[in-house]
């Protein structure tokens, strides 16, 4: 909105710098506070990191395709597998989930934006800053190389204490600082988002949308946000302890000086286990929206789906030491965690059965989103079953730290989270961009990915049980591991091919631009009531909600459980005028300050690498930028 200013008044009131007003054009992406644009920013950036993480995976698989591979030496391999894990978890899956939360949450609850739009933008910029900071390590001392879990005392002592291999203490310290500070900054993004989404869900639902009328996806966003809120501080503390240990020899984890390396494991996994539920619950939410739409039936057992999600959220805090069954906590602790780990399978199993119940008796339309949704149900089941076998502690001592575990978590994270996220991409793409992705190419993507994925990770179950440990840069001939490693590598390249198919689909569909319309899938929830793409203010009139699956009830009148389509017109809620000027809807103004506050953080983080004046200067500059940004944020007027 550009009001024509009275020249006399403009001179007297000119602010320090004018608040931006543009909501279109390339620069608007840097100042946007619109949850939809922020969602797209998250999605594109996360997808880019997913490609990078995927290339790292291909390097790993190329090295392991045959015994005694020579593509990567120990030094590089350890960096690559560490960054593969960090990238996929913190910079691909979490932000892809955030992309969906950002884009869809306000639309699904009938709101115009989130509670704190500038904080939302800040979350994105901080996430980007964290990723760039972590990857800047390539240009300097090299990437973190201690694994994504980075156990003590290795994270303190390093892999080459005598500096004989070019990875001595100085280099090691730098790599650990990239890890520690990079993840700290990323954690801030997640915390800010968590607060934002919780407040939005509690306060900004449309009239009539009680908690038990919210879509399951919104519930999963809600639970995930609480998990983030409580889990990120735990790793935050651990990362501070690591930074202090590495930089100033504070002996938190030093057994020779009163510390305990097992403390790091407890801190890490107390975060790390809720983290895996943070990774999967959004995909569970997505699938819970896709299956009902393409089965033309409601989610089976809505209450159970909600409460099992909440149960998983709570119980997920009680299982962390199942990552530590071989560290020697003793039979009593191991028993307790074996039991909690087994029983968290119960609410998870409930979801699987309820999803099958959703399909049962439906009219199943196998469009691409549906294929990915069913794929998640099938593949996550496999990962869940191998997870239950991990709970059998005496046998877990054979499984732990082997490729059997790698198989398990890739089945749940790739077969589960990634499949669910791609399902969401195909499902909501028309809403976000206004045009359809080609369904045939989508199916090619799905099947290639499904086959490639199973070829990559299925054999890893066997490799693990046949004695192949994790995190080894090479293995000898004569171990009996050659065939399945070869098969696994072939599968990995198939996965890569499927991603190329997806990217081709995006490019060619964009050229064709088949218009989507408001509701191309005959869906059930209110985001499909508005245009594709939605206007900046989401809804011309905020819908009044009278039931779960509100849109479906408007389109189909009820009649003893039989639904009869209502003649055209009822799904259109907004007036004929279009545009928001006539309705007087004021949306939050764009702002530079979220980006500025974010930009100061990596600069300050670089300060920890130096001593004396260098450290002080960098901390001061970074701190000053962030502080300036905070003051600007707080004090900036609205655009008018």
């Amino acid at each position: 909105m550009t009001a024509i200013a009275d020249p006399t008044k403009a001179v007297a009131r000119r602010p320090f710098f004018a608040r931006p007003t543009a909501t279109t054009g390339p620069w608007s992406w840097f100042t946007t506070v619109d949850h939809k644009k922020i969602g797209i920013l998250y999605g594109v950036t996360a997808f880019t990191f997913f490609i990078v993480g995927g290339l790292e995976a291909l390097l790993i698989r190329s090295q392991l395709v045959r015994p005694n591979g020579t593509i990567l030496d120990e030094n590089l391999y350890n960096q690559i597998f560490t960054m593969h894990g960090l990238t996929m978890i913190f910079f691909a899956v979490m932000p892809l989930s955030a992309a969906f939360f950002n884009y869809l949450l306000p639309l699904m609850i009938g709101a115009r934006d989130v509670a704190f739009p500038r904080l939302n933008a800040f979350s994105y910029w901080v996430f980007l800053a964290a990723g760039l900071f972590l990857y800047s390590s390539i240009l300097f001392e090299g990437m973190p190389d201690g694994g994504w879990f980075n156990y003590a005392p290795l994270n303190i002592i390093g892999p080459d204490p005598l500096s004989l291999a070019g990875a001595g203490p100085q280099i090691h310290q730098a790599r650990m600082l990239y890890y520690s500070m990079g993840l700290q900054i990323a954690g801030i993004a997640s915390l800010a988002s968590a607060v934002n989404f919780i407040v939005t869900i509690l306060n900004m639902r449309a009239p009539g949308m009680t908690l038990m009328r919210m879509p399951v996806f919104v519930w999963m966003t809600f639970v995930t946000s609480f998990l983030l809120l409580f889990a990120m501080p735990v790793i935050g503390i651990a990362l501070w302890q690591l930074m202090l240990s590495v930089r100033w020899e504070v002996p938190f984890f030093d057994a020779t000086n009163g510390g305990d390396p097992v403390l790091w494991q407890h801190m890490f996994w107390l975060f790390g286990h809720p983290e895996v539920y943070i990774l999967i619950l959004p995909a569970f939410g997505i699938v819970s929206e896709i299956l009902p739409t393409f089965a033309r039936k409601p989610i089976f057992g809505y209450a159970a789906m909600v409460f099992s999600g909440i149960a998983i959220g709570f119980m997920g805090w009680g299982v962390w030491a199942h990552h530590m069954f071989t560290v020697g906590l003793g039979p009593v602790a191991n028993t307790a965690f074996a039991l909690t780990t087994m029983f968290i399978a119960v609410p998870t199993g409930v979801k699987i059965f309820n999803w099958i119940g959703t399909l049962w008796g439906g009219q199943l339309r196998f469009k691409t989103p549906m294929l990915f949704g069913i794929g998640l149900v099938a593949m996550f089941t496999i990962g869940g079953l191998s997870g239950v076998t991990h709970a059998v502690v005496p046998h877990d001592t054979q499984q732990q730290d082997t490729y059997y575990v790698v198989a398990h978590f890739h089945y749940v994270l790739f077969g589960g989270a990634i499949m669910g996220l791609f399902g969401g991409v195909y499902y909501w793409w028309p809403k976000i961009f206004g045009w359809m992705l080609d369904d045939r190419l989508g199916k090619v993507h799905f099947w290639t990915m499904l086959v490639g994925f199973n070829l990559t990770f299925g054999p890893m179950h066997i490799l693990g049980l046949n004695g192949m440990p994790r995190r080894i840069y090479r293995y000898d001939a004569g171990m009996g591991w050659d065939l399945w490693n070869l098969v696994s590598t072939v599968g990995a390249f198939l996965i890569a091919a499927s991603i190329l198919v997806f990217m081709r689909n995006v490019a060619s569909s964009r050229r064709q631009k088949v218009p989507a319309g408001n509701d191309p899938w005959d869906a059930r929830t209110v985001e499909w009531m508005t245009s594709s793409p939605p206007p900046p203010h989401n809804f011309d009139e905020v819908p009044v909600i009278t039931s779960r699956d509100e849109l479906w009830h408007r389109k189909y009148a009820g009649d003893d459980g039989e639904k009869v389509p209502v003649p055209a017109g009822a799904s259109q809620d907004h007036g004929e005028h279009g545009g928001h000027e006539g309705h007087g809807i004021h949306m939050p103004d764009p702002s530079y300050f979220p980006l500025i506050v974010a930009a100061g953080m990596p600069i300050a983080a670089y300060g920890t690498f130096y001593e004396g004046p260098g450290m002080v200067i960098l901390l001061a500059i970074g701190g000053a930028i962030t502080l300036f940004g905070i003051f600007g944020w707080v004090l900036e007027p609205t655009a008018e």
Partner: protein
Amino acid sequence: MRGRPRWGIAWLALLLVAGCASAGDGALPQNALDPAGPVARIQDRLWDLVFPVAVVVFILVQGLIIVAVVKFRDRGEDRPPRQIAGNTRLEVMWTIIPALILVGIAVPTIATIFQLAGPPADDALTVRVIGKQYWWQFEYLNAGPGEPIRTASELHIPIDREVFIELEGRPGETEDVVDVIHSFWVPRLAGKQDYVPGHIRTMRIQADEPGTYQGQCAEFCGLSHADMRFAVIAHEPADFDAWLATQRAPAGEPTSGLLRQGEQLFSQQQCFTCHTLDGHPDNANARTGPALTHFAERQKFAGYTYDRTDENLRQWVSNPQSLKLGAQMPPYGTGVALSDQELDALVAYLQSLD
């Protein structure tokens, strides 16, 4: 579309069968599915219980998906289907039944946890194991009078006798420098236990038959984690006693000019700073590197990674990092290069230490 889910499921079933078929294959030296001793067998029995249950659940779930996908596919009806919101009785059942199955798995699991956590047998052979970047040290604590026999990478044991392993990570309890977490894993004999700085951990292994059982470190420990391997070599009791006797002998005296030259170089290159040769006048009982008193009895070296050939040894001594990047041994011991002839002499001396 109809046949395709069946393909996927059939392929997965094939994978399972292949996986099971690969068990018991002699060409899988670290096969956890082929236990060779009572501890691994007890652990494997739990797998024999839980794996079939998992397979049944797998078949049930995938089967239901396949049936649903075939039976309920859209046939172009104009009305949507019955909008069934749930079925409380079914949902309660599929909450309770899995919980009961899990109880059935939990009971033997817990029993086994406690069974394997007991104290050592009265006649157990006790071995102190210390993990270092990047090799395993073994000390026989109760194998006879005198100082404990100390070896590296190849753990000789008698068959049919419990070997109680103490993974000693407490800095005050050992002269050894304690570094990072490692994990001691010889799959055919037992599941793994971590070596944890600051703590002592225990486990037991036992072999039924004579033979060589391979293992390796299973907790990421840095650059050469992949090359921190070891072997458990099990003997008939009489052969084991004979082996113990050879271990008590001091390092062999050189018997030729070349070997004498090699012995002198060993001292000159400061090898005694890190390595032990029992009985040698220059010996300092150093524990930084593996004991070399009976080096030439070993099948492999450098953490059970390389065959003990002259060529490998020449390369190792001259440039350890070229064979194992993380090796914490400086080239030539002191960094001072040797001529080819001197290197030959030193290697010959090492190869004579049986």
